[in-house]
């Protein structure tokens, strides 16, 4: 029996010890009328060899196209060491470290992670992860409502230039708690959020302002001005950040005069593969004074009976296990294994390596933009400094172009025209350090041909 070790003898002896005639008797408390007749709709078992072949066939069907999408998930080089350690049984098959003494490996690693994230964001403390960046922003909004005692309004300002799915998710998760989200427009020329749009709120009760740096278009925001506005208006500042970018960009803790209050983001760029969409992880950092409002697990260093230092889950009184209906969040299982990957990744890259990844990605994206905007029918949407993404505007609908590129083995970018109709045929592209100049050339050539052919056809 796959994965079940019982021999006939075992079964007999065990039933005897229980005093049950057969295994079926163990289910006798289930009302007879409810007993299921098995699971005929589930296919019969395959052995590992068969399932391996099946999965390989599925995978082969999908192939390995050359990717130029970012849009919230970034293809970076992941050192082999990362996943070879992450998948060690001791990390992979352990539970949440409830028994601290038997989980010092995971706990120490998480403490190291918290230290790294706090430093990367330039804030005091970090939790041990949330589900992802989008739901993390929702948690940040809920946290801001709890933490900003000066505000009663539950009004939070979000930029239009925020990842639109983040906005969707925030609405779904925080929306049930009567939080009102209002939108800050962006500059049509530069792509940056209009800080001047905050003026209309000056003097009003605003709970928090969020800004994404770089924003969804890849454009760099004027985070200092926004942060100062927020603090001047008793609002908390939430920074939504790409962790790679923090190696070169001013960290949230240093935005404006006082620094942002909460930093959140998706940790995927730190050693987590694209994985068809997940699992990734959300990170969150904040100031010391908000620690009791922060959702998610937190690891603390303490002493053991012999006075030796060790690590343990702490501040559990905020969490659902203990606090139940009054918990800071319902989150329980988080994304521990991905944090394990990120911690190893950051240890391998260090500040220097991460800065090189960031800078090289910026350079590559610039090269990509240069190459693609030379293609007739393609121009750049925004002229402000950006990180490693850019919006291109096509002279025709994006989708057929992307389909045509896909047939050539190229994933040409994210079609964002539906989400930003005012932009027209907008394509969000990204090139990280993993894309070579040859890759960029391949894309540019394919795009040239695609545009030529579809123009010819039109």
């Amino acid at each position, binding site marked *: 029996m796959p994965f079940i070790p019982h021999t006939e003898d075992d079964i007999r002896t065990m039933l005897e010890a229980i005093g049950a005639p057969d295994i079926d008797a163990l289910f006798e408390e289930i009302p007879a009328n409810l007993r299921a007749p098995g699971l005929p709709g589930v296919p019969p*078992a395959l052995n590992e060899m068969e399932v391996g072949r099946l999965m390989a066939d599925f995978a082969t069907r999908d192939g390995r*196209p050359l990717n130029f999408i970012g849009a919230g998930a970034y293809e970076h080089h992941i050192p082999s060491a990362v996943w070879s350690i992450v998948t060690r049984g001791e990390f992979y098959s352990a539970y949440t470290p409830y028994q601290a003494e*038997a989980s010092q490996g995971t706990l120490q690693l998480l403490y190291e992670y918290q230290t790294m994230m706090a430093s990367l964001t330039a804030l005091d403390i970090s939790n041990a992860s949330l589900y992802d960046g989008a739901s993390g922003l929702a948690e940040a909004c809920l946290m801001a409502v709890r933490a900003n005692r000066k505000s009663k309004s539950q009004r939070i300002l979000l930029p239009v230039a925020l990842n639109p799915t983040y906005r969707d998710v925030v609405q779904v*998760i925080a929306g049930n708690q009567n939080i009102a989200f209002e939108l800050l427009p962006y500059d049509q020329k530069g792509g940056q959020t209009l800080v001047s749009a905050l003026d209309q709120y000056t003097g009003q009760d605003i709970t928090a302002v969020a800004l994404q740096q770089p924003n969804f278009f890849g454009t760099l925001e004027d985070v200092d001005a926004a942060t100062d506005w927020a603090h001047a208006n008793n609002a908390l500042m939430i920074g939504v950040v790409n962790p790679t970018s923090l190696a070169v960009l001013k960290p949230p803790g240093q935005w404006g005069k006082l620094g942002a209050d909460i930093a959140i983001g998706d940790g995927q760029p730190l050693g987590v593969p694209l994985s*068809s969409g997940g699992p990734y992880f959300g990170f969150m950092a904040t100031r010391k004074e908000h620690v009791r409002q922060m959702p998610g697990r937190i690891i603390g260093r*303490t002493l053991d009976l012999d006075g030796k230092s060790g690590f343990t889950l702490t501040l559990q009184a905020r969490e659902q296990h203990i606090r139940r209906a009054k918990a800071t969040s319902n989150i329980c*299982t988080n994304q521990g294994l991905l944090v394990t990957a990120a911690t190893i990744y950051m240890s391998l890259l260090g500040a220097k390596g991460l800065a090189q990844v960031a800078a090289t990605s910026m350079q590559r994206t610039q090269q990509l933009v240069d190459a693609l905007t030379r293609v007739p029918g393609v121009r750049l949407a925004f002229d402000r400094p950006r990180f490693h993404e850019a919006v291109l505007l096509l002279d025709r609908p994006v989708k057929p172009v992307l389909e045509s590129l896909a047939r050539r083995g190229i994933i040409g970018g994210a079609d964002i025209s539906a989400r930003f109709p005012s932009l027209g045929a907008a394509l969000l592209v990204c090139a990280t350090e993993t894309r070579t100049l040859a890759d960029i050339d391949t894309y540019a050539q394919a795009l040239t041909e695609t545009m030529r052919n579809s123009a010819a056809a039109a």
Partner: protein
Amino acid sequence: MHEKLIFEHSAPGRSADAQYPRVPVEAPVPAALRRASPPLLPEVSELQAVRHFTRLSQLNFSIDTHFYPLGSCTMKYNPKACNQYAMLPEFINRHPLAPESTGQGILQILCELQDMLKEVTGMRGVSLTPMAGAQGEFAGVAMIRAYYKARKDFARIEIIVPDAAHGTNPATATMCGCTVKEIPTLPNGDIDLDSLQAAVGPQTAGIMLTNPSTIGVFERHIDDLRRIVHEAGGLLYYDGANLNAILGKVRPGDMGFDVIHMNLHKTFSTPHGGGGPGSGAVGVSERLLPFLPVPIVGRESDRYRWLDEKDLPQTIGRLSNFMGNTGVLLRAYIYMRMLGRDGMQRVSEFATLNSNYLAARLRVAGFELAYPERRASHEFIVTLRHEAHEWGTNAMDFAKRLLDYGFHAPTTYFPLLVPECLLIEPTETESKEELDAFVDAMIAIRHEAETEPDKLKGAPWTLPVRRLDDVRAAKQLDLTWKAA
């Protein structure tokens, strides 16, 4: 064994140079937006990192190294095949927004997974996007709320939970803007239906139930319970964290539940990873179908595509930036295909056999079962109140001492209604020998409790650290390392 912090291995200028682009590039960031000083990340060589994290890993107990009977957590063997095949380069390098035409393989997998989960739960529709049990709960309660909003029944904002419920249940209800009403469990382990009857009313949105409950018994009066809630106009939520107990034996849909979340990282054996990732797929009955969170995979003749807000205009919406924890879903799919229809039934059969056997042996050995007259489900509760009372050795002491004996401790002090409790879930993948060894350890520890209670109170003795001071941890917060 002690391992320094990674920062203590660090030295300025050291790094794992093979891991990033060599040619120095200056990031063209405007001065005002530039980072002034580098973050405090470790500066270590590749070997130092590998050695550090390898050594750290060895400080953990895990399924691959230890029996881990953590109740409500279903710590069973995670087949290595699930990891290997989920990590195929095509899957892990695929961008979630790549055109559907380039992802028919993975879409088919996810679609088949949806179908299998429908079959397993007896529900009509499934969405895979929730990223853990608690997010599945959120989706479930949000759907209940959306359902009532669509019916303009705005009064229904109360969620009933039994006192044995997992903490995520009430916490979720709150997050969804509901209020929580708790109802008691009877001494025999069933829910107090009178209290339930008294609790329901026009304000009732629904009840959240685990069945078998977290005290490890099957709610026998589920039919009555369902009737009471449905007649009061409420919906029934099934917390499917414990599906391991009933796979193929009884289906939440057949019991009349309207919505369920499933912890794929428990029943379907995706690993728990020292704290996640999980997956909390949700299933719904007919009437909640329109509200399922998106995206969902749809099949149109032989093509697969994502269904989104356009296809499900009443959806509660999105819970994650993409489509949930795909990698976890792949692992669950592989596991389910390897089990097949018969293997899935065996899961609940042998999980239940192991649980009842362990309970029977511990009872004979003198331990008190919390619900001795009941069949155990896949887990059961021992209460150590006598041991605590007579010898001053409480459940925590037993738990810590078990670590010395090479066993991970069962869940302690949950559910809260049973004093000094150990919630023990052996799972189907453990052998009789392992269970017997656990019983031997429990007997030995009980003997120690009587004769040398300090052995328990000082435990653990043989682990990397002795018992840790949790109070100090919370009082003298030390959450990040600072250079001396």
